[in-house]
């Protein structure tokens, strides 16, 4: 029975990147609509 691959690092990276992009965009929208 092969071991489960140890690639958790990739998972973490992807989850962080996604959060950064989505939060970043949400923030950008908030600030742009707030200025007006």
């Amino acid at each position, binding site marked *: 029975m*092969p071991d*489960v*691959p*140890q*690639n*958790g690092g*990739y*998972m973490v*990276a*992807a*989850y962080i*990147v*996604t*959060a950064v*992009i*989505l*939060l970043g*965009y*949400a923030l950008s*929208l*908030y600030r*742009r*609509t707030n200025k*007006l």
Partner: protein
Amino acid sequence: MSLAQKGRWIALLGLVLLAGVYVRALAFTPLERFQGPAQKIFYLHVPAAWSAMLAMGLVGLCSILYLIVKDARFDRFAAASAEVGTAFSLVMLTTGPIWAKPIWGTWWTWDARLTLTLFLFFLFIGYLLLRGAVAEPGLRARYSAVLGICGLVLLPFIHLSVYLFRTLHPQPIVLKPSSPSLPGSMLVTLLVSFAVFTLLYVGFVTQRYALALLREAQGREHA
């Protein structure tokens, strides 16, 4: 409540629920035996793809409708959808290679999915650049609509060409990607994630649309 505020609340709800998806995917969804933890990227990548495709589809649809009835609301929506689509396709474009590396052994592979992702991203960027380059609102709306429709028609051709390319050039796979039939728990996580990403799309588009309205009200050229 103004449109911008409604959008903000929807987006906020989406983000909170996204955190919930994170928790569920990371802690409460079983590990895939052969692909390991990296398989869980799937729960973000695929819904992001859905949102990006939805965004592009609506850009195309609104472009057609705009050219037919010349209603500025369609143009505004198309512009909003394009910007939101760019964000989601950026998520696709980053999570795709991060997923590919452990599963296929390489950061990039010209398979149908990743290639389509790349060109979808270019289409969105091109659309936004065109809008930025044309100052006059009427002209900008018409030109963007032309591009939007062409983009929509292009997508099936890209898919077909890459598919044709791949069926004749099978590539080695290090680990087999997820099979279509997912065990129950994983399927639930995926479906919830789809719903959350759709909610995020709605929240973001609403805000971006509101932003366009606000700018126009202020008499600014760029909406």
